[in-house]
């Protein structure tokens, strides 16, 4: 089976599974198998923002006044986030678009991935504004071992799925001998397993891996430092909270069997592996926190507190996909972070104060003279 950009078969897309059914042909949204993805698209579009809207001129002065170990914390987090969004800006498209079978889900994947490219552009905006030579920072991302270690774990499931799907598209089902890799078995169950694990690892990326960085950015802002950066991170966090709902829905729909009965069997078989993906990521994030604070802590935050927060947030995220919490941390050690993560006070203009997803151009055309009866001049 090879991918077609406009599948000529006639079929009822309402009966297709989310993935590995027919390639999508008509991009139509008048009927939807899973309307949640259309709602996510609308929400994401209502969140649209641009990094240039946020003024960073005082961040430059703040940054120069930070102690050296605080600059290390700030820049390392930016590098890690740049890595994560580099992956997320392309991978949902590359890995999932060739196998998606529902128009609303296809468009959600594109909308989701696009919003990640805004995040990537905002890191350049931040870095350009606080240092004279951004190259030094960007170049370090591919050589710094602490970052590259993490690059391996965030990309391994995506890369494996992409490779298997490309074998499936070119060679079809069967066991194929790939030079340098040995035998690779391509069957529907192995493809679906690779997909399920990929979605789980993406959920972990967006629901856990970003949060150490978020906590540090907001801890600086609590001291009224790097506040422009915090405003941007708040917008990124709002997007990521929406994205994690997208992957939670995919995982829960798959596990429920409502979408594809075979996927429910695979989800049950993979439960232990998925648990381990969460636990392994949490351990890596705790290690990352130690690396950040290797030369000294910052006011209000240290490696131990951040480690407890990672455990706490991992418990919250595991429970959201139907897994038992695996860490003993029962309380959020930094509850002040929620006031920064809340999206209803993300505000860029006064008319948007009441509702964060303010819609532009929502005028009422159904007016007649009687609507002005109350007006006195």
């Amino acid at each position: 089976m090879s991918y077609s950009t406009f599948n000529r078969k006639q079929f009822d897309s309402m009966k297709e599974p989310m993935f590995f059914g027919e390639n999508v042909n008509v991009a139509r949204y008048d009927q939807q198998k899973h309307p949640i993805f259309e709602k996510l698209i609308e929400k994401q579009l209502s969140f649209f923002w641009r990094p240039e809207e946020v003024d960073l001129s005082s961040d430059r002065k703040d940054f120069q006044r930070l102690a050296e170990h605080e600059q290390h914390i700030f820049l390392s987090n930016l590098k890690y986030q740049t890595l994560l969004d580099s992956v997320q800006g392309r991978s949902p498209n590359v890995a999932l678009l060739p196998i998606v079978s529902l128009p609303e889900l296809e468009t959600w994947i594109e909308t989701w991935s696009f919003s990640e490219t805004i995040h990537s552009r905002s890191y350049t905006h931040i870095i350009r504004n606080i240092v004279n030579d951004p190259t030094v920072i960007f170049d370090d991302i591919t050589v710094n071992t602490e970052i590259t270690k993490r690059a391996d774990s965030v990309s391994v499931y995506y890369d494996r799925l992409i490779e298997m799907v490309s074998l499936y598209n070119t060679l079809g089902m069967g066991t194929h001998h790939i030079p340098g890799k040995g035998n690779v078995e391509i069957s529907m169950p192995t493809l679906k397993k690779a997909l399920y694990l990929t979605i789980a690892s993406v959920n972990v990326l967006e629901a856990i891996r970003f949060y150490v960085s978020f906590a540090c950015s907001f801890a600086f802002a609590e001291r009224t430092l790097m506040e422009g950066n915090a405003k941007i991170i708040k917008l990124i966090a709002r997007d990521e909270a929406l994205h994690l709902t997208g992957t939670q829905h995919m995982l829960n729909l798959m596990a429920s069997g409502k979408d594809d009965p075979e996927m429910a069997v695979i989800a049950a078989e993979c439960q232990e592996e998925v648990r381990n993906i969460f636990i392994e990521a949490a351990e890596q994030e705790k290690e990352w926190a130690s690396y950040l604070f290797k030369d000294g802590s910052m006011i209000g935050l240290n490696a131990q507190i951040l480690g407890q927060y990672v455990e706490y947030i991992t418990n919250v995220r595991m429970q959201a996909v139907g897994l038992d919490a695996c860490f003993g941390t029962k309380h959020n050690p930094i509850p002040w972070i929620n006031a920064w993560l809340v999206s209803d006070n993300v505000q860029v203009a006064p008319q948007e104060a009441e509702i964060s997803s303010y819609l532009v151009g929502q005028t009422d055309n159904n007016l007649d003279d009687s609507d002005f009866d109350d007006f006195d001049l």
Partner: protein
Amino acid sequence: MTSTSKQGTPSKDQVHRVLLGKQQFLVTEDEPLLPQLERAGIHIEYQCREGYCSSCSIKLLWGQVEYPFEPLAWVHSGYMLACCAIVKSDIEIAFFHE
């Protein structure tokens, strides 16, 4: 969000009991559970407060809640989203880790 509740309907001043372990709180139907529990000094994890991030998901052991609008987050059976659920009867809740 346009409010659909009419003034003067019997439900407006209805008070319900919320059990959480050995604690008990009285809540109204005027606003979701989360802000009412916060005022009572109970910390519930939250993030978006708009029903899409699922951070405020808690166990609903028994009782009725309603959502004025359908939340975007997946709500597992036996759970509720504190940020947007209106309590409609006496209920018992628990945190996920208890």
